[in-house]
């Protein structure tokens, strides 16, 4: 087969689309669904800018076919804010100054979300280990670590 019809849920909304089997999940999100929050950095698994959650787990969407997401629940940065209210992680990133150019931020937020689901009260060491797949060229990481600790202290739903 060269095209396939897939059903995916993205940020709670169901989509049914016919796509080429050679389309990556990243291209599907950006080009088919116009969800451009998820970034294309290296296209080879190194940078983490394309990180999204597939059934709650962080993956590089550049290294996954859209058709491999058939039946899955995808969560992207666009799903974080609810009715104009920012997610605690987003609040904390602003508060701690964890964003400079912002290119890594959507991927960082997705990895951070998965991290808080796994460790609701993470240590700085756990944060650095779980975020090893997200590269930031601007902040030097310190403020990102602080932001995630701050978000965990806000003690709301991770």
């Amino acid at each position, binding site marked *: 087969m060269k095209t396939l019809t897939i059903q995916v849920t993205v940020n709670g909304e169901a989509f049914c689309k016919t796509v080429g089997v*050679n389309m990556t999940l990243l*291209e599907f999100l950006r080009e088919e669904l116009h969800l451009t929050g998820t970034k294309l950095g290296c296209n080879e698994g*190194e940078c983490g800018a394309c990180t999204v959650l597939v059934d709650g787990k962080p993956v590089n969407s550049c290294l996954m*076919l859209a058709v491999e997401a058939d039946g899955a629940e995808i969560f992207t940065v666009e799903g974080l804010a609810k009715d104009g209210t920012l997610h605690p992680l987003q609040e904390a990133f602003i508060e701690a100054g964890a964003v400079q150019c912002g290119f890594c931020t959507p991927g960082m937020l997705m990895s951070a979300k998965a991290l808080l689901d796994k460790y609701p009260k993470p240590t700085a060491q756990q944060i650095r280990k779980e975020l*090893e797949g997200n590269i930031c060229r601007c902040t030097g990481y310190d403020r990102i670590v602080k932001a995630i600790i701050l978000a965990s202290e806000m003690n709301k739903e991770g």
Partner: protein
Amino acid sequence: MLPQFELYRPTNLLEACRLKAQGAVVVAGGTDVYVAMHGGKLRPQALVDIKGIADMQEATYDQNSGLTIGALTTHRTIEEWELVKQKYYALFEGCSQVGSVQIRQRGTIGGNICNGAPSADSVGPLLVFGAECLVVGEKGQRKVPLAGFFTGPKKTILADDELLYKILVPPPAPNSASAYIKYTRRRAMDLALLGVSIYLALDKSRIEELRIAFATAAPTPMRAYQTEAKLRGKDYRSISLADIGKMAAAEANPRSSWRASREFRLRLLEQLVQQAFTTALQRAEGGDL
């Protein structure tokens, strides 16, 4: 966009073998395959995605036979498996250091083995635990020691129709411990410039069993058989650590690459062997892991 290809998604093992025999490239987690395709190094006519084959996902432990790991088991699953931490600590250390969370979430242990890279982080630990590969082809299955699986850089014994189906890892002795030391230039997201795995079983201070494996120290992952044989049965207090390091490094055949020169790797190997040996020793004497 990836180059165009035909995609097959069999749920039946023999169907997958047949497609592979016809030239389709096997894809599991895709963390090696899709990178090669994005880079233009691999342009397959057809891909056969094997993730639909259910029993290749299973991973179990039995106290008599040890681990039976389906080839599709991800590094993340191994990393988060408490039993692996308790009994096969070096394997935990290997799998938990592959790439990143995202890579470990998709990348499989079967893909790590079949990709045939000398740097593969799961392979050294599996070698020292004496793992065997269950290989399935159109005509049946065979069991091959992992130590005999690699024939050259990126080359394995798999025939055109064969898939790696499961990996069998015998239970470690109760008086044993293991360690994997991965040397990298940065702390995360880097391939092993060198890797040393050790399995050590002690009877008081006598070395009952010792197995040593290296990553990125030769064209394929390798065991240091001669050093193992020389030390087996000896009192570890009668041998200097420096000698163990020298002996083991003499068995390696690393190459020079942009990551490091052969000379540097050989010197480093001496040190890493000592470090891995001491770590395993401490763990064995500590009675845990």
